[in-house]
């Protein structure tokens, strides 16, 4: 893991230290609980994340992120996500995008999975549909539909909201629990100050749906996160 971090930091130093590239960005974030689609992937413990993103003039984009996860008690892995997609603006000012992401878990590649997505986005809201043929390597096909929105209160303060539904579509290990659709919600307040963005949110999810581990944590919790951009 340390080697991964060193490699990532070296990449940032190399890319940011040379000629400024217009659309390369990096963020480092910490959060009190890594909630992925409403459910903790860090056993309700604080987690950090490093993300790199590059936007090309053509509308193509690609990036990667690294996060510490704990899918079962004291079972620590690093989740590395690579993603690439294409976004184009419509004359209405909205955008449409499509792309794919691949999640790799160091230490247990059986969790690895691929996901494709398509979305319709505007300045203040976005709708996206994801499809994973083998969600977290559990042999279950799922669709995830989510809506995101934010509303500026002042120049630096905003309200934001997220609602999502994870819909099982079938698969080889399609248990009764896997068949249930799980919905999740995230509502909060965000504040940006220069390079720092701090968010306080309430996150919650219903029971059921396929997941990499039996989840015993609280369904809803407050989450504090801070994001530093480079």
């Amino acid at each position, binding site marked *: 893991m340390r080697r991964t971090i060193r490699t990532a930091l070296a990449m940032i130093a190399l890319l940011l230290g040379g000629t400024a590239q217009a659309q390369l*960005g990096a963020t480092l974030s910490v959060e009190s609980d890594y909630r992925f689609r409403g459910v903790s992937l860090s056993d309700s413990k604080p987690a950090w994340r490093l993300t790199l993103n590059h*936007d090309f003039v053509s509308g193509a*984009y690609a990036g990667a992120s690294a996060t510490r996860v704990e899918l079962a008690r004291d079972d620590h892995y690093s989740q590395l996500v690579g993603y690439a997609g294409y976004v184009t603006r419509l*004359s209405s000012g909205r955008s449409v995008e499509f792309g794919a992401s691949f999640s790799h878990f160091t230490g247990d590649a059986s969790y690895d999975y691929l996901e494709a997505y398509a979305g319709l986005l505007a300045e203040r809201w976005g709708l996206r549909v994801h499809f994973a043929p083998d969600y977290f390597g559990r042999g279950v096909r799922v669709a995830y539909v989510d809506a995101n929105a*934010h509303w500026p209160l002042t120049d630096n303060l905003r309200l934001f*909201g997220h609602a999502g539904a994870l819909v099982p579509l079938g698969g080889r290990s399609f248990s009764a629990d896997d068949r249930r659709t799980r919905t999740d919600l995230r509502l909060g307040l965000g504040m940006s100050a220069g390079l*720092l963005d701090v968010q306080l949110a309430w996150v919650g999810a219903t029971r059921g749906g396929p997941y990499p581990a039996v989840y015993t944590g609280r369904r809803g919790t407050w989450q504090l996160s801070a994001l530093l*951009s480079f």
Partner: protein
Amino acid sequence: MTTVRLAKLLAAVVAIIVVILLVAPAVFAAEVKPAEPSEIDETQRILVLLDMPAPHFRPDGNYAGGYADPAARSARRRTVNALARSYGLRLVTDWPLPALGVDCFVLDVPAAQRPDEVAERLSREPRVAWAQPMNVFKPQGRATHDDALFGLQPAAREWQLAQLHAAATGRGVRVAVIDSGVQRDHPDLAGQVALSANFVADHPEAAELHGTAVAGIVAARADNRVGIVGVAPQAELLALRGCWQSSAPDTRCTSLSLALALHKAIESGAQVVNLSLGGPADRLLQRLIESAQARGALVVAAADRGQPRGGFPADLANVIAVVDDGSALPTAIVAPGTDVPTTLPGSRWATVTGSSYAAAHVSGLLALVLELRPGIAASPTNAADVIALRADRRVDACASIARAAQRCVCDCEQAAAAGSGNSADSIARH
């Protein structure tokens, strides 16, 4: 969350803040303390536009979307800081313009360099969408008298305003007046302004002559026993201050202040955008005007009779160019604009003259048309599609409203007796 975990998280947040304090000076070094208004030479500034990627998927689920993406924004800031160092410029401020998909940076050019040349060189940089000088714009009108007036509005006579208002009053139509400051508590404007915003950072917000006069012609209150009647008294006025009164009656605007006001008009869903001003061709403003039109807004501009095609922005495609009735221009339509009584700061009324005020008349008339036919601006539009014109290119207000209402509007009894009128059929002959 246990106390220990919370403590760890807070420690991490503090660590990030410390890092920020260490790296921030390098990032913000180019930001300068705003100069006093008297020191600012807008013509010695340039605008540098960097493409802003459209919002897209991020693997961190906490990202709420939108152009406020902090990583992308800091990337653009790094770029412009590098350019500023390379060209010896000073970064003043930046404004995201998501409606256009660009981030707009304002830079001071040293006195020894020409802003237009620097902008041209910067435009060739692969990292720059384009760069341009900060242009200065002026209104197309002047005040002529300072007398209180009653019942002398040209529109009341030539346009038969009272009869038009029996068909439409502009109810619920959003008209953006991009101009100098409007006196919102003027007796004839109180309650008429649905939204007010100031985009002239260096000049304190104030009630100013040109903006207040234009706003009154568009939407002054009706039946309040004082002053005048706006052409569209029930329109929702968006008073967007993109100009300032430098010294009465002189009014000035810049590329940046107008761009921010236009962007706000787009964001606010303005259906009519009134630009009673003119100046040099400006790529940023042209892009914003086209963006507003693509979203269904009708854009009205005062034409400069001294320019062959009315000057910018009146010469743009599908912008409705207007001159006052003391002028003539083949590409413009003619509306009342001579000795027009209207609202002025200080809760006064006086007469004004100029194409600025003719444009305000047309913006008000468009609000009436849009109340009756909301979808009229859905396709590319020119003046003749929306407004009925006489042979001499004067606006025929009665015919315009009759066409939108699909019925006779003015002097209908006399018209019926004579077997003609301003019905839709007869209007088709215009």
